């Protein structure tokens, strides 16, 4: 079985790259391939000028030092204290006692768990456990942090806490992050670019903003819809026989009364079927799903005018036909 197939992407230094998809899309397999915990049958994984797939185990070990990883279920050592969990990679690499103590103190302070140094993971909340895992992943000053569904097992409050922590890590350390998640709300506040995975393949890759403005693939729309559209676009399209459009508004245009201008200027009755505004890292973006009552030619001119204003327009075809036409 192919869990991951023909996936190709690159991540720059200091970038947060999101891999988003539903369960079973192959995200976790992919992340295990990145640090060679699973050896891919084919393909290349370039890190720091080396194709990891060709490297002997000793080189891989060395490179894994430069890739921290955090997991959905934290994977902390249950019989080691918080301090010993964070110290583990440092001990493994033979750092001196004084160096280990200094680094662990620094990290525990950073994650705000100095008071829990002697606690065992079972005594911590999920959010605290993930912060310990983050500290462990950062202990050896990695250049890349892999985050495998790090917030998926957490409640909303702890998710928020961990997201804030990750944001802080990236801002403070400027390391690259590959963030695997099925939660668009997590990707949307963290990622610079996002790739959508479905059935082991990357179906769409773009900035978060563009994905929200113009979700081209059905898989992307499913991810976006998860929290901002209650009703699938395809169903909205079947509500009326008139053409239905999804209008994506960038932060510049999100606050302007473009639609009422349209109505006045082109004498169109605008029927608003759905809409929302999303706060992204890059600013607020919004969307409206509309159809028009009125002259079809005027409709075309109106859409042209909207395009000129920088609005992204997707024409929704009927539900039975399924697809979207740009």
């Amino acid at each position, binding site marked *: 079985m192919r869990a991951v197939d023909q996936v190709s992407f690159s991540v720059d230094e200091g970038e947060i790259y999101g891999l988003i998809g539903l369960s079973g899309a192959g995200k976790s397999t992919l992340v*295990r391939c990145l640090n060679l915990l699973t050896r891919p049958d084919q393909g290349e994984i370039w890190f720091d000028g080396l194709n990891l797939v060709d490297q002997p185990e000793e080189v891989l*070990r060395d490179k*894994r030092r430069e*890739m921290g990883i955090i997991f959905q279920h934290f*994977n902390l*050592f249950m019989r080691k204290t918080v301090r010993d969990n964070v110290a583990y990679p440092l001990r493994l690499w033979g750092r001196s006692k004084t160096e280990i103590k200094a680094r662990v103190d620094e990290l525990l302070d950073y994650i705000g768990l100095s008071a829990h140094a002697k606690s*065992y993971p*079972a005594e911590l909340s999920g959010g605290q456990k993930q912060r310990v895992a983050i500290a462990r992943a950062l202990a050896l000053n990695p250049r890349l942090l892999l985050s495998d569904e790090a917030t998926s097992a957490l409640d909303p409050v702890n998710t928020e806490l961990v997201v804030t922590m990750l944001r802080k890590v990236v801002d403070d350390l400027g390391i690259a992050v590959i963030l695997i998640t099925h939660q668009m709300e997590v990707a949307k506040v963290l990622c610079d670019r996002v790739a959508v995975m479905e059935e082991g393949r990357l179906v769409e890759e773009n900035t978060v903003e563009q994905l929200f403005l113009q979700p081209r693939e059905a898989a992307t729309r499913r991810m976006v819809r998860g929290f901002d559209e209650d009703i699938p676009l395809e169903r909205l399209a079947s509500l009326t026989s008139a053409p239905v459009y999804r209008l994506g508004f960038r932060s510049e245009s999100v606050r302007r009364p473009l639609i009422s201008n349209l109505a006045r200027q082109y004498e169109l009755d605008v029927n608003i079927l759905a809409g929302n505004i999303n706060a992204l890292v890059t600013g607020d973006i919004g969307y409206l799903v509309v159809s028009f009552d009125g002259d079809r030619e005027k409709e075309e001119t109106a859409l042209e005018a909207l395009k000129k204003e920088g609005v992204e327009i997707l024409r929704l075809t009927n539900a039975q036909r399924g697809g979207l036409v740009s």
Partner: protein
Amino acid sequence: MNDFVKATWETLLMVGASSFFSVLLGLPLGVLLVLTKPEGLLPRPQLYRILDFIINVLRSLPFIVLMIVVFPLSRLLIGRATGTTATIVPLAVAAIPFVARIMEQSLLEVDTGVLDAGLACGARVGQLVKTVLIPEALPSLVNGVTITIINIIGNSAMAGAIGGGGLGDLAVRYGLYRRNAVKLYIAVAIIILIVQLVQWAGRALENSLRRDLPVASL
């Protein structure tokens, strides 16, 4: 009375020494089984199948039969086939595959995610066994050792019947041949007491090592 002190000492010696040797050899074997499994960290399916088969064969022999089969080995190692010291050999040989299997089960209980975390930090497999696999499984391993010791106590009583000495020997001699019920019951009571003590100490040690539930604050 003197009989009982001597027999108890013999039993403790037999059980202690054979427990020690069976864990000494059985634990590495258990680790080897876990690592060489087809889905293990160092998959060697061929080796795993062979080990697995040998362990199954040894475990399927009744102890009394195994003891006789192992006589030559006892002679080779100890110089004789009967007596307390010589009986340590069959007791250990019988327990090694048992220990290997029970340790294998304990080690398999360790969450593979935790092993991934160790590997992702850059651990070699050997380091991972030492710093993660065994430490994380420790309470369960202790439980396995407890079960092993109790098992060996049972076998040692049986070994007594064929010249091994100890409390089992005493119980058979007085109880069966001389019809001395009091001495028989005393011997049995001492065996029960030893089993209870081992069980209690094992459980206490195991619980003191467990960290998977929040420790109640004092």
